[in-house]
């Protein structure tokens, strides 16, 4: 019985882990911190689901939990940095949030960088909608906003990305 439950959770995590990591990544300086956040959220979800037959949780709830853990992480990081001024975060240039499906996809690689530069409010909606597969209603409940606001943020984010892509293409055309 326990092994069956464990296997269900492992399968669930194998399917959704990368999406959760992507969402957690926007709260953290490093991938390791983001993986810690996901682990913390999984642990919280395990105990939450104890009264629900230990079934794997719904994604909107997990996103919400990661967001909550991320906020707490931010607060504790600010306090810790004040205490430990000698801690240095070394950027790992191989730490990428998103991977191109096709090799040498230059446009996708350019878009990847622009997504990281979106504001957190826009980025989290894009991540939950596009890669998380959530509806605007579910996103609204996760972020405690209206579905219209969620849809507006999504559209605004994509318009911003479209504008940046247009600029890149124009520069490329001018150089050619």
């Amino acid at each position, binding site marked *: 019985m326990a092994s069956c*439950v464990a296997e269900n959770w492992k399968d669930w995590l194998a399917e959704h882990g*990368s999406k959760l990591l992507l969402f957690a990544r926007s709260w953290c300086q490093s991938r390791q911190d983001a993986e810690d956040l996901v682990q913390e959220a999984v*642990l919280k979800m395990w105990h939450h689901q104890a009264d629900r037959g230990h079934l794997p949780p719904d994604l909107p709830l997990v996103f919400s939990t990661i967001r909550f853990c991320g906020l707490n992480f931010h607060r504790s990081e600010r306090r810790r940095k004040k205490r430990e001024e*000698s*801690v240095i975060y070394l950027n790992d240039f191989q730490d990428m949030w998103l*991977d191109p499906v*096709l090799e040498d996809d230059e446009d996708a690689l350019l878009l990847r960088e622009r997504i990281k530069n979106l504001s957190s409010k826009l980025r989290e909606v894009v991540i939950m909608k596009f890669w998380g597969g959530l509806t605007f209603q579910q996103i609204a409940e996760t972020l405690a906003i209206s579905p219209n606001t969620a849809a507006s943020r999504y559209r605004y984010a994509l318009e911003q990305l479209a504008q940046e892509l247009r600029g890149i293409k124009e520069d490329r055309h001018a150089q050619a």
Partner: protein
Amino acid sequence: MHKPEMPMDPIEEVESMLKRLAPAAMSEVASRANEAMIDDLASGQIADTKDTIRRIYWWPTGIAASLIAGVGLFFLDQHQANAGAVGEYEFLESQEFTKPAPNGVSVEKSNLYKLNKSGLVVQVGERNLINTLDSQF
């Protein structure tokens, strides 16, 4: 008469490009740690949510302590590490391994960096201790 192709809506163009990106997978270390945690949770070996998973930042301290033969690693003191890391550096490799600990499992991961200014190699790592508490049942 052949109708010219309508240009793609910019939003649709961005969405079709987003489809060409996939979230990066979790690291092998994190995946193994999560699976171990799930196994322990399912078998009732982890009873408490607090302090179950402790993270330790492993940072070389003290004056250069040892040279590991064949690998060329130096443990730098804090000031040397700070000064070197502010400048440019080159990422060399990642190391990760899991080993038993007195109260559970220790998952270690470290990155090796070469500081371009000094040529010294720095090892920066972290150690996650997953404590498996004694079950009361």
